[in-house]
């Protein structure tokens, strides 16, 4: 699919929350939300996989530092369905990113890059961003 929405100069600070709402395609295989400084420096690569890379209904998270991927972390909760509207809320502090999922689930991912602000967001895959809020 075509490259999804990219946002620059967001300037999201620790304690602030980024809320992203969008539509998951009816035939969705996978989608991605990347957050960080730019495309090579991601404090969070958030990749729900419906059916992709041998994974079924798994969220894969990772970081990217200077273009190099870190160690993957997998979440077994998967409150996503193809053909639905989903909303996730992401905030961060010095230690962790906190990701709130639909249906009250949440998890943390270590803040490996030690960024002072999240300035970059990019969506990709079978997900169309409809609404973004900074709170």
């Amino acid at each position: 699919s075509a490259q999804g929405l990219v946002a620059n100069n967001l300037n999201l600070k620790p304690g602030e929350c980024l809320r992203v709402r969008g539509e998951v395609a009816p035939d969705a295989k996978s989608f991605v939300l990347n957050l960080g400084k730019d495309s090579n420096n991601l404090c969070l690569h958030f990749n729900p996989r419906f059916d992709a890379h041998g994974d079924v209904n798994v969220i894969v998270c990772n970081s990217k530092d200077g273009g190099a991927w870190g160690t993957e972390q997998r979440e077994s909760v998967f409150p996503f369905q193809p053909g639905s509207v989903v909303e996730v809320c992401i905030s961060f502090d010095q230690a962790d990113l906190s990701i709130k999922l639909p249906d009250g689930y949440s998890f943390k991912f270590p803040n490996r890059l030690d960024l002072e602000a999240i300035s970059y967001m990019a969506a990709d895959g079978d997900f169309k961003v409809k609404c973004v809020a900074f709170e």
Partner: protein
Amino acid sequence: AQEEFEIKNMDMKLGATLKIKGKIANDAVGFVINLGQGAEKLNLHFNPRFNESTIVCNSRDGSWGQEQRSNHLCFSPGSEVKFTVTFENKQFKVTLPDGHVLTFPNRLGHSHLSYLGVKGGFKISSFKLD
């Protein structure tokens, strides 16, 4: 200079409505909301200027087009505001916070907008595409 908040690869088609909420800085002289194909190809340049008590709209296709000015400046520095932009075939309709509607012609004629840029004394708090 303050870096521009920008969205690329937006998928705004004819008939779509973009709602933008945010806060105007207390010391704002003005701000800009740009919509178009990229920073140098703007179907709509929306530029409230508090120091001139006017709203300037224009288009840009490498160089600026002819300005259109409105004196309906119904908002002020320090306030939380919402703007709604409806993208029609021939024109944009910009609904101001008090409900007044400004129209501006779609001079560049595109049927798709992929770029949103915000700069100056306006901090965006949300945007929504319907």
